[in-house]
């Protein structure tokens, strides 16, 4: 496609880097921004740059947070003996929305996929093992997507935890059509958290 302006082309290039945004949608977003008052673009640019420069990750669970220790980890009412292991922030939001989970989390930052260049040492797996080794943890609840990557990650973690006095369980499978926890409705997800099952091959 040819664009009449280099500025437009650069904006389209930038937008089309987002997942699910093709060049046509990128052009639509660009033209939308041009029709809006200038402050709108300023605010957008500031929100994006603040997001990158100010965001911190919880030193314990690696969830995105405004403080060094996130609100969930800092809470006195959450059960520190149960850790729910998830791939990313979206899963934390989905599970929190069910209101059925009272433990804490561990956010891996992705799932194991050597082909895509994601090896176990690039995820927060070692720090999970360290948390378990500290002795306070009684149960690991794996809430990973029902995909090959989710399975591999679950098996890997349970292999690494073999011999530790910790119970490994998983949310009931089959709830996550499409493989993403975030799509499961709250009621089903909530029920499957309550009815978790022992993890095994």
């Amino acid at each position: 496609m040819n664009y009449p302006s280099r500025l437009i082309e650069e904006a389209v290039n930038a937008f089309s880097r987002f997942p699910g945004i093709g060049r046509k949608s990128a052009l639509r977003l660009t033209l939308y921004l041009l029709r809006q008052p200038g402050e709108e673009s300023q605010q957008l640019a500031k929100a994006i740059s603040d997001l990158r420069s100010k965001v911190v990750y919880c030193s314990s669970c690696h969830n995105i947070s405004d403080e060094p220790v996130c609100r969930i980890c800092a809470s006195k009412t959450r059960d520190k003996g149960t850790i729910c292991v998830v791939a990313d922030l979206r899963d934390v939001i989905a599970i929190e929305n069910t209101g059925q989970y009272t433990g804490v989390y561990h956010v891996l930052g992705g799932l194991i996929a050597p082909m895509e260049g994601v090896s176990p040492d690039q995820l927060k797996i070692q720090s999970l093992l360290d948390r378990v080794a500290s002795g306070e943890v009684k149960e690991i609840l794996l809430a990973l997507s029902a995909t090959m990557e989710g399975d591999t990650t679950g098996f890997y973690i349970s292999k690494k935890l073999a011999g530790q006095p910790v119970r490994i369980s998983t949310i009931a499978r089959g709830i996550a059509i499409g493989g993403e926890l975030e799509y499961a409705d709250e009621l089903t997800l909530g029920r499957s958290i309550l009815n978790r099952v022992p993890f095994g091959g």
Partner: protein
Amino acid sequence: MYLRRLQLNNFRNAVSRDYVFEAPVVALTGRNGAGKTNVLDALHYICLTRSYFNSQDQQLIRFGEDYFNLTAQIEDEGEEYKVFCAYQPGNKKVVKLNGQDYPRLADHIGRFPVVMIAPTDLNLIHEGSDERRRFIDMLLSQTDRDYLLALMKYNKLLLQRNTLLKSWAQERKLDKALLEVLDEQLAPLNRLIYTRRAALLDQFNPVFEELHLEICQGHEKAGIQYESGFHQGDAATLMRQGVQADLEAGRSLTGVHRDDFVFTINGQPVKKFGSQGQQKSFIIALKLAQSDFLGMLTGKAPFLLLDDVFEKLDPQRVASLLQLVGQERFGQILLTDTDRGRVEAIFRHTGAEVQYIGVSS
């Protein structure tokens, strides 16, 4: 099953085509390069969500365009179905039945069975084992959902495993626990795929043998022999024993992706001992047996796509082929030929109702 209408947009070299079909036999005639084969391949794509000739969806898009889509209207047991397939690079392939997405693409495959016979099929005999595995996989995938899902998972896990092995070969870096985790998932898949392939051949070989006899009107016994490392023992054990060799090679040397299927006549490999005529008969019988077999298992006579088949066949084989077609054991037939006169002459005495569609670019 009856194909009523087929629309192609930016598919291969077709800008926009719309065909209406009205007969159990449809002959698409026209010059080479006019796009006759596109129509057959479009129906193949509709049924199996992939081209028969090209596994890269990207290369099916008409030059200069950025997507293609196909729509088919199929009548099946008195119901009308609309199948829509679309592909645009960077997006997931879209397959809809009556406007609804499938939860999994795999649920569509086998819904409308299809068999293609094309000149390139002789590659099945002459090329490497992956061509023959693909043939067996396509046959099984259309009738066995578990097999298809296992195979998809297997291929993905194997790629992951080979990435690990390669990084060991290049950087001497290996996460042993991860390799074990992959192998623990691969072993039961190896077992399932191996067992189903073996069981398939037990069922398929008698059907094939009989059809081959009918085509050749001779006494040659055709068959497929299954060659697999797993004849020697259990998958998990053999995989464990092979790990060291895999690490040295930088890829997986044990597994169903190394299986082969040897085509034989009277127990002798066709590749080495078959004449050209024998090889052609072998392939045609193989494909017709595939159609018979799919029909038996799915309860529907598959679409039969014949791409340029008559031009390359001697009259005697054409005659025995048509005799089978006349028995109405096959589904709707779509065929291509450069010579309408030849097709007319061939079908003149069969009593089959033939619709002729001229295709020009």
